[in-house]
């Protein structure tokens, strides 16, 4: 008996050690030498001029690697961004693929060339002609032509791919020659060029690799062949994605040799950033961490405000929110400055209006903080305080993201002061999107999402009857009509007037209201220069959201 026990104990130990060691995964094969990484040591110190054989896109040193951190919940699902997409895949794709044009979403100054050198619009804003850069090539060496553009956009439209939203107004696409694409729309659309240059817009896919295949299962979804400044190297799922400089990029090669994206959960991401394991983060840090880290000159936190606001939306079918006075009173009772201080460490400026800030924003259509007036409105609307001081009880459905988890707690306290008691129903994104966005099974919803930079991206998608973000049951024919008019008017002053008119209607009806402008920032080490949001790059071609064409490492 004792011997058996002894043997068994020994056996268990051996088993543990043997299995433990035997499960070590085998080493991957050595990567093939590549043009961009062949001589990294020489390239790192050499200035751009010395590598005279290859043209470089901008000014500054060439060489070096940028390791980027991202949340592992945002690992891309597919690198075919026209078919399916998420915030995690678009930012990786932005360096591999080409958009027709690039919209400056950080500084909101306009639209600049990308794959198309130039473009022109018909006077009625319903036909657009794009002239492609004749030097553009796919990473496998095949020439990129207008056929690729036509095929990608047609396929996206036919298959209702992820970028379909931005192409649904397209009537036909013609290719008069190899480098010209003529897009005819069903009706005028003044925001069309901008929507071809935002991250959510369609990218150009390689027709020669996709045509005749099922694009959902094409193997190139996992090893993309694009035409952008960086070439795909490898994607080890759950671990990292590597891309390397494309020496043949039509605007000149990028400065960096390699970009590696690694995946972490949030706390580890921040630690990895501080330890220098990553030098850039795709995902945002909590505001208190930004405050702490930005004191150190080693790191850079430039905050910018894209067209993204945090907002509250009412289900206008549900009592008491079908009463516009109640909706307005609640908007008045929310102290946005307090939310900014407590949730976003003072980095998120209040937005008292309805649309994101920008040229079309009407500063007279705002609901200022005034709890006393809010109480008066509620009395007027027929909701006096009860014996317990409560006017009525309701609930709010929220996705605990981007600060909504903390923000909702403060909002509950603020509304309690005017006698409105709110219970919170928090959920993850998957539950939120099916319960709130899909079935409209909610009372008040938390909101936050990119809507810009052109105002059509906001009005057409958020307040027009039946539009994607308008699951508020809000419908006003006047708003629909004005939005359509503004959408089809090329003249900016005229559009400004039309949008101001809509904002005045929203001020009266309040189906939704803004709280703060979301503070965007990309944590980065100061040794990296010329990042895509920096003012010095405004006006250059191919400055996309998250693109690193001009970024260099200052040794």
């Amino acid at each position, binding site marked *: 008996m*004792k011997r*058996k*026990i*002894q043997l068994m*104990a020994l056996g*268990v*130990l051996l088993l*543990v050690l043997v*299995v*433990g060691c035997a*499960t*070590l*995964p085998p*080493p991957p094969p*050595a*990567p093939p030498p590549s043009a961009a990484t062949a001589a990294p040591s020489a390239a790192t110190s050499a200035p751009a001029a010395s590598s005279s054989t290859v043209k470089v896109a901008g000014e500054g040193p060439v060489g070096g*690697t940028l*390791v980027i951190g991202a949340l*592992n919940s945002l*690992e891309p*699902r597919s690198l075919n961004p026209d078919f*399916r*997409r*998420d915030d995690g895949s678009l930012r990786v794709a932005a360096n591999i693929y080409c958009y027709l044009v690039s919209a400056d979403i950080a500084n909101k100054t306009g639209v600049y060339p990308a794959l198309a050198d130039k473009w022109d619009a018909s006077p009625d804003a319903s036909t657009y002609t794009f002239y492609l850069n004749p030097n553009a090539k796919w990473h496998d060496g095949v020439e990129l032509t207008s056929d690729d553009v036509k095929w990608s956009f047609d396929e996206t439209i036919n*298959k*209702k*791919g*992820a970028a*379909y939203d931005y192409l649904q107004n397209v009537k036909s696409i013609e290719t008069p020659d190899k480098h010209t694409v003529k897009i005819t729309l069903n009706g005028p659309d003044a925001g069309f060029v901008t929507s071809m240059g935002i991250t*959510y817009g369609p990218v150009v896919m390689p027709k020669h690799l996709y045509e005749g295949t099922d694009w*959902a*299962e094409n193997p190139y979804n996992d090893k993309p062949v694009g035409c952008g400044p960086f070439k795909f190297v490898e994607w*080890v*799922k*759950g*671990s*990292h994605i*590597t891309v390397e400089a494309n020496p043949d990029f039509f605007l000149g090669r990028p400065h960096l040799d390699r970009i*590696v994206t*690694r995946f*972490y*959960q949030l*706390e*580890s991401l921040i*630690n*990895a950033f*501080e*330890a220098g*394991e990553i030098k850039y983060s795709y995902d945002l840090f909590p505001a208190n961490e930004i405050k702490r880290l930005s004191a150190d000159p080693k790191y850079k936190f430039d905050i910018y405000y894209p067209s993204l606001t945090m907002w509250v939306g009412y289900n206008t079918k549900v009592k008491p929110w079908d009463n516009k006075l109640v909706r307005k009173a609640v908007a008045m009772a929310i102290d946005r400055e307090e939310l900014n201080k407590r949730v976003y460490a003072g980095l998120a400026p209040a937005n008292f209006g309805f649309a994101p800030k920008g040229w079309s924003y009407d500063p007279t259509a705002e609901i200022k903080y005034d709890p006393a007036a809010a109480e008066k409105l509620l009395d007027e609307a027929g909701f006096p305080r009860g014996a317990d001081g409560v006017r009525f009880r309701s609930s709010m459905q929220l996705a605990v993201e981007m600060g909504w988890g903390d923000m909702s707690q403060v909002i509950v306290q603020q509304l309690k002061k005017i006698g409105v008691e709110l219970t919170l129903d928090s*959920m*993850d994104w*998957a*539950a939120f*999107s*099916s*319960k709130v*966005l*899909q079935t409209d099974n909610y009372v008040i919803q938390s909101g936050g*999402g990119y809507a810009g930079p052109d105002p059509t991206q906001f009005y057409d*998608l958020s307040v027009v009857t039946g539009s994607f973000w308008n699951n508020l049951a809000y419908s006003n024919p006047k708003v629909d009509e004005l939005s359509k008019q503004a959408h089809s008017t090329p003249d900016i002053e005229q559009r400004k007037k039309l949008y101001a008119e809509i904002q005045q209607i929203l001020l009266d009806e309040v189906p939704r209201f803004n709280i703060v402008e979301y503070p965007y920032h990309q944590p980065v080490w100061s040794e990296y220069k010329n990042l895509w949001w920096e003012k010095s790059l405004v006006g250059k071609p191919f400055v996309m959201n998250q693109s690193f064409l001009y970024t260099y490492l200052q040794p």
Partner: protein
Amino acid sequence: MQRYLLRRLSQVIPTIFLIIVLEFCLIHLAPGDPARVMAGERAAPENVEALRVRFGLDKPIVEQFLVYLSRLAQGDLGYSYNYLTPVLTLILDRLPQTLFLVFVGNGLALLVGTFLGTVAASKYPSKTDAGIIFSSVLFYSMPVFWLGLLFIYFFARNLQWFPIGGTTDIIDKKTGLAYYLDFLWHGVLPVLTLAIFTVPQFIRLARTSVIETLQEDYITTARAVGMTPYRVLFGHALRNALLPTVTLAGIILGYTLFGAALVESVFSWPGIGLLLLQAIFNRDYPTLLGVFLFASVGVVIITLVTDLIYAFLDPRVRLG
């Protein structure tokens, strides 16, 4: 023995079937529409609908279950909604990392925990014993991800002795022996975290059973004939007290297949656990079911092996 083996094996199949049914129901009870998550933000409703049809999510749930079962019978775990890859490939890619973590971590915990528990028992009652028990309670009550974060904070971020995440250096890739050393170096913190999480259980178990054994008459005899205290403790007392530890090791191996998920998440260790967490966020049903199935079959097998070892050791079990 053979009859016992057959009896135990015949219980395994219905157990696994029941597990599959329960898992399938539980997963589909959670709110959230996988087609919608799959399609991504702002997807056209037509696109969402197309995905729903593509993956058979438009069919009644009973039909979905039957389809799943019939595929499963052919060894097909399905197709991940999220990665658009066969689930089996996903799991097999990540299994080695998890097995390494779980076996090495728990092996270490078993060795250290049993040793410390025996030492504590031999000094019982004393300050040494109290100290060991106190620290074991302390570590046991620490959330494992928090412990992992503390390790990262001190040893990876401040001292920079170890990397924060991953299994190998992906910037400067190693081959051959250097690769394995690099892997082990990356594994130090996650393995230690998991080991510290399970070690208290081994300490407490070893301590209790050794204290009990030390009261036995044969120990008194052994001491009386003049054996060294060391020999009495490790040669006689511990040897008899090991039996429950084997059981515990089996149970712990089983449930740390899941417990390792948090460790994997903190250390960006691309294993099964991390796959599981992401599958939950994305409502990736086939992957979820596949991981659950793997883990529960693992637990069932480990339990079976433990039972068989028991039966082999103790005739009362197989005759009873």
